[in-house]
């Protein structure tokens, strides 16, 4: 509802970029935006950590998001890539407007970061998926952007999913295939279409069935703003979903321990996938 909208931004993308340039002389080769519960790329070399509150004038309020941007090298070599890791994001369901939700991505674009990897935790719709699978997005559905608040979702559901495959998604998939062939413990990557819903309530079973009819493989409440914002810019974006549950009608859901373990294993594989990919781009 309109009166629940959070405070407006006080920092522009240009101001945030100017601050980042003061903090760090070089532009990272890639940035990574991490969703809740996804822990990868810890231990960057000589890191500089900036709090979102200091950089953007706002901090995310959802548990599991630390709200920091870390800049550092992946390894000790002079050729090792410089990366920026953003932990946490602003969501539309919290009442933030589009400008706020896309601020971090707009900053990365204006800073000149050429590659962006986005992660999220998502519910699995594809019945071939399992908890802990990693899905590289080759398409998405936008069911969350503010235009639908004015018109409803009918125009959004009547179109095909948007293809988002590009050089970076191809690189992720190729790297994943190599990791799987080198080590049988590395579960093969999935690929599929992500449905970005507004939330914050979860899907009804009728909505799960609808999203399957609309060719979606996973569902969550983020990522689509970042992908839309990168369209037509110098930043190439790719996204990976960590599948945290699978909507199956007749199956007892795994206990919390099992889900936690699967998420941890998924984070380890995602870490390998990102390190190898970032070293090769």
């Amino acid at each position, binding site marked *: 509802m309109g009166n629940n909208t959070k405070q407006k931004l006080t920092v522009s993308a240009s101001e945030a970029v100017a601050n980042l340039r003061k903090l760090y002389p070089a532009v990272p080769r890639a940035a990574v935006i991490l969703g809740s519960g996804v822990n990868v790329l810890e231990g960057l070399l000589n890191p500089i950590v900036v709090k979102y509150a200091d950089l953007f004038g706002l901090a995310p309020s959802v548990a599991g998001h630390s709200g920091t941007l870390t800049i550092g090298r992946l390894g000790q070599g002079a050729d090792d890539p410089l990366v920026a890791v953003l932990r946490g994001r602003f969501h539309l369901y919290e009442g933030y407007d589009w400008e706020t939700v896309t601020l971090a991505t707009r900053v990365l674009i204006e800073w000149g970061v050429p590659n962006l990897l986005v992660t999220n935790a998502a519910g699995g719709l594809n019945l071939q998926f399992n908890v802990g699978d990693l899905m590289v997005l080759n398409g998405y559905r936008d069911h969350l952007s503010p235009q639908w608040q004015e018109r*409803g979702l009918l125009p959004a559901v009547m179109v095909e999913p948007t293809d988002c495959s590009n050089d970076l998604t191809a690189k992720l998939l190729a790297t994943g295939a190599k990791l799987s062939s080198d080590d049988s413990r590395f579960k093969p990557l999935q690929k599929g279409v992500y449905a970005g819903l507004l939330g914050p309530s979860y899907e009804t079973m009728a909505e799960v069935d609808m999203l399957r009819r609309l060719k979606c493989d996973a569902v969550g409440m983020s990522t689509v703003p970042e992908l839309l914002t990168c369209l037509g810019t110098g930043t190439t974006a790719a996204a990976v979903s960590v599948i945290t549950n699978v909507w199956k009608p007749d199956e007892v859901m795994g206990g919390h321990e099992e889900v936690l373990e699967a998420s941890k294993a998924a984070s380890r594989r995602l870490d390998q996938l990102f390190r190898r990919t970032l070293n090769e781009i």
Partner: protein
Amino acid sequence: MKLRYAKRIDFTGQVKEFAQEAAFGESVIKMLRDKGKAEVAIVIDRAYGLKDDTPYLISDHLNLSGNNPLVGPNDAIGQRFPVVNNIYLDANDTMDQEETWSLGNPLGKMQYAIAAGLHPGVTPTDAELEFIHKLGAKLYCYNLVPTMIVAAHAGLKVVGVALPEGASLRPDILATLLR
């Protein structure tokens, strides 16, 4: 579950025994969040897009409104990410031995439908209506879905009734909903 203390909301203007609301909004949210003995909200909304003029019990919904009434800071009455599955009551779930055996189960004779919740003011074209049906919904309405989401967040179950223009509820059904 007992319907005795249910919060009863009518958006059709036809069921005068219920609280009358013109549209979903702040007063509906307040009513659903007010503490009391209610376990259930009974919501009657106007049904559109049907080929017949039969009232339906709602079994589930598609939120196609593009919005969600819980957007914004979370109200402490419920979870940040509420699960909204199995919120709509089956007719049999409304049978309470003490209250209702004498009435039989008139709700059980009603047919079920999945409702699509549309954005207020949006009237679907024929092609859009066909697509709504293809997505699994038999009818559409404007107030039921946001009302259900707020009710579920507040810990209530929902009896959803979709009433097409020109139709009315049979007296035994109304008596069951009012008991």
